[in-house]
């Protein structure tokens, strides 16, 4: 007895939507890769990472105590997560994530 076909899992947030042909066949070469859409969130992320790198490098050249394996990763987290969190805090919105375990698509 064959197992009934399972529904496809929901796509991850931000992932390409065009995954496979509807009849289950392999997608054609031209459809295999869908360029990632550059949304406002992508631009914000890019800005946050770039500004974190520029500020960290600029400051650490003259303050070398910043070049530390704890400070470095912490700087990135503080910048990329902390700045949006600060913005949310100012707008009196919750900072802590409201969700189940990490890794769940939704």
């Amino acid at each position, binding site marked *: 007895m064959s197992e009934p076909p399972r529904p496809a899992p929901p796509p991850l947030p931000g992932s390409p939507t065009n995954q496979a042909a509807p009849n289950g066949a392999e997608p054609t070469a031209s459809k295999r890769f869908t360029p990632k859409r550059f949304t406002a969130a992508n631009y914000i*992320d890019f800005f946050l990472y770039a500004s*974190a790198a520029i500020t960290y490098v600029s400051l650490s050249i003259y303050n*070398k105590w910043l070049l530390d394996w704890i400070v470095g990763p912490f700087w990135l987290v503080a910048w990329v997560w902390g700045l949006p969190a600060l913005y949310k805090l100012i707008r009196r919105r919750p900072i802590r994530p409201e969700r189940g375990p*990490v890794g769940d698509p939704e």
Partner: protein
Amino acid sequence: MSWAAHQFEVYAVQAHLPKKMVGKISWFAIFFGDFTPDFLAKFWVYGFNYNGHHYGASKPYQWHRGWPGMGISHTLFFGTLVCLGIWAWKHNRAWTIGFLLGFAAHVLTDVNDSIGTMLLFPFSTLNWSLHTWAYAATVKGGKYLDAAAYYSSLGAVMDLFWFFVVLGSWRVLSKEFWRTKVVPADPHVWSWLGQWLDDRGLLALYRGVFFYGVCRMIAWTTWAHLVAKPVIDGVKRNGYPWDLSWTGPWWVQHVTLPHVTPWVVLPVTLVLLAGVYFVANAIWERMESGSTRAIAWRNVRRKTG
């Protein structure tokens, strides 16, 4: 010693895991494995000053990589002992093998400087070194001279090499890779961190070590060649001079410890690297049954106790 190369290695190992281990090896274990040798040895290498007195190793290179000294922290023997400890404690193959791969990457990369590592400890206390660049941690020069020498020599090329290895497998830094290959291998840790950080923060944490590697590479190189004004052989210079020759740079003393002939180092290092991957591959499945038994036994104890 290597600098940013050790940060990039973590992602290089993660990106080049054997197929059956993809999505099952703890990224944190690779990270801690790669960082443990220097966690244990580096602090005393540079030491610190207090009340006008310097506290630290009198011979940093001997302390860092030699025997007697903390050179044992840079041996595959010590890494194996720690892995056995992790396995005995947790019976977790994701952490045991992850730690082993990270640790091996660090130890094998460090054969490049003029001191090298004791690859065959405890059978031999001779150091294995390719002498690619000069080991430059000294009591007088401290961290700054060490950084300047490294980022003026083939050490900088080494960092760039590992940087491009990671860039060549750039997907390892993507959100999708993190969600599908990194988080499932360590669900409890990421879930625990997820109490405070949203996905953007967790992803930044994952990418943080790479970020630190890139930034320290740029910052130290910029400082050494554009900002520093060293006096070398009585001549004041604008920036430390580049020297991309073997065993460079010429302006630091080329210190060594008793070592084997450099010609055998590269083949032996590659054999050991292959050996580590072979052993990890060979014991991976066997460890699964060990993990299952340990979990079952723990559940029994919880129910009865």
